[in-house]
């Protein structure tokens, strides 16, 4: 069984991937860390020097969590609001 994860891309990630939003087909019980690994792999070494905070369904997750089908995941590169 696979799950579909919606990944919204911003800033450095968007630069590297070239799209606003992508859909990832992943194995059941995939985790937020798995999404990060997958994105890093997809973008070769473009995101090597960047550390991410991960948000699932618009909330920061402080540690690795399991994902469900239809979850929205965003890799948040260093922010500069204000």
């Amino acid at each position, binding site marked *: 069984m696979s799950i579909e994860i919606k990944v*919204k891309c*911003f800033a450095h990630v968007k630069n590297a991937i070239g799209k606003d939003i992508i859909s990832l087909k992943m194995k059941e019980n995939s985790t937020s860390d798995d999404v990060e690994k997958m994105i890093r792999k997809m973008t070769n070494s473009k995101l090597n020097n960047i550390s991410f905070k991960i948000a699932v369904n618009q909330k920061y997750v402080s540690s690795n969590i399991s994902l469900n089908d239809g979850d929205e995941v965003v890799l948040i590169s260093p*922010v500069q*609001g204000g």
Partner: protein
Amino acid sequence: MIQVEINKKIITPFEDIDFFDLGSELVFNGRVRNIENNQKILGLYYEHYEEMAMKELIKLSNETLDRFPIRHLFCKHRVGEVLSGEVSLFVLVSSSHRKESFEALQWFLTKLKKQLPIWKWMILENGKRELVK
């Protein structure tokens, strides 16, 4: 109480505030510089994760109200294309006395810059853009 906004509209300080309180009223205006990362810029483009940015701002504003004895916090963060010299962030904090306003504002701004999913792009003189380092 809190009143927060994130949108592309030009910020006119004090406009659209639903309330004014008595006592100390502390205002912060963040105006876009014309230099960033040692390069001259025409302005900044603020990219944001729309749904989450608003949630985080509300959360942070409520947290500030809980942490400090302030009465009201009003915050407008502008996103999109902002020219140098225009205001991108406006914050108003009111409390009975100024001590708590200063402390609350300082804490709020520090947290805001770390937490809100908002990114800055510099618009260089030649029109090209780069993420601010």
